[in-house]
């Protein structure tokens, strides 16, 4: 796998990560409570900043921790096929789960998450008053969606670990920056004075499209990696032996 292909996979995986909605839902709820309680605009902006910083930090920690764990399983410069096969399996499995379950049926943008996790985040978003709490909420919101983000995260990390150190750093920066785009966009809209109802209405109107796009992208990425890293590699190895 060349560097440009590895970084392209990282970018696509990060885009899939960005399409997941738990952090955005939590940010929207926190903003609604903050504005509804009459807090100043400056306080709202610092809360949004704290939340985004928390989500970014958790994403960096997850990428680095998973990279460290997987590096113990990698011998030499090649990622074992079994890891690629596991990554593809996760992509297909999560892709089907996203297609079928990501949003709960009915109105709103309720996610298919354990209700206790969702209620905890909703309750914490109501009680968040300072930047530290917003930071912790950002951390928790990314961790709460680990069930879905683990698939793109794993293949991104598998693509990053075999790169040179400077390229690894670039890969991590690219993944984190792209995966935070949607959150940053919503934070910018809220701090720019847009109405929460408009943002939430847009999310609700487009939830089926977002769900379909995320599931399809997971499948496309899984198929590409399966063909190129699981099927093609042994064939080319056999070909070179002959």
């Amino acid at each position, binding site marked *: 796998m060349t560097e440009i292909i590895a970084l392209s996979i990282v970018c696509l995986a990060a885009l899939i990560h960005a399409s997941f909605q738990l952090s955005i839902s939590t940010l929207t*709820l926190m903003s609604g*409570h903050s*504005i509804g309680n009459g807090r100043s605009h400056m306080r709202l902006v610092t809360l949004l900043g704290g939340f985004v910083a928390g989500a970014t930090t958790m994403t960096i920690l997850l990428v680095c921790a998973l990279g460290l764990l997987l590096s113990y399983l990698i011998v030499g410069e090649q990622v074992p096929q079994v890891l690629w096969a596991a990554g593809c399996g996760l992509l297909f499995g999560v892709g089907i789960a996203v297609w079928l379950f990501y949003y709960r049926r*009915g*109105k709103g*943008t*309720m996610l298919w998450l354990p209700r206790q996790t969702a209620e905890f985040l*909703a309750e914490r978003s109501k009680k968040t008053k300072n930047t530290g709490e917003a930071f912790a909420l950002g951390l928790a919101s990314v961790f709460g969606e680990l069930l879905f983000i683990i698939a793109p995260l794993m293949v991104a990390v598998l693509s990053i670990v075999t790169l040179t150190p400077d390229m690894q750093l670039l890969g991590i920066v690219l993944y984190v920056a792209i995966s935070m785009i949607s959150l940053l966009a919503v934070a910018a809209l809220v701090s720019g004075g847009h109405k929460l*109802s408009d943002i*939430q209405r847009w999310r609700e109107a487009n939830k089926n499209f977002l769900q379909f796009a995320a599931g399809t992208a997971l499948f496309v990425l899984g198929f590409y990696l399966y063909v190129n890293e699981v099927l093609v590699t042994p064939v080319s190895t056999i070909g070179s032996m002959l």
Partner: protein
Amino acid sequence: MSGKVIDIVKSGGKRPTETFDRVKLHHSIKAACLSERSHDGAADSTAEKVCDAVIAWLEERPEVTSHDIRRIASRHLTRHNPGAAYIYEHHRFTI
């Protein structure tokens, strides 16, 4: 409302029944209006009107569910501030 006590049955039946509290309703409607960037005075005025309408609806009912209150309040709030009504009705369905 002439000092009449109205019981509110909470959603899901897990929490105990509580007495209708105008201040609580006013606060939640005002918060929804403020989150739609309404000015404080306008939010207060809208919340007053919606509370009056809900209390008028409650006159003939000794016991209602919290869902009923939310539905009726949302219906009246839509006339004054559709965006706030959307937030008021949907905030439980965000996550």
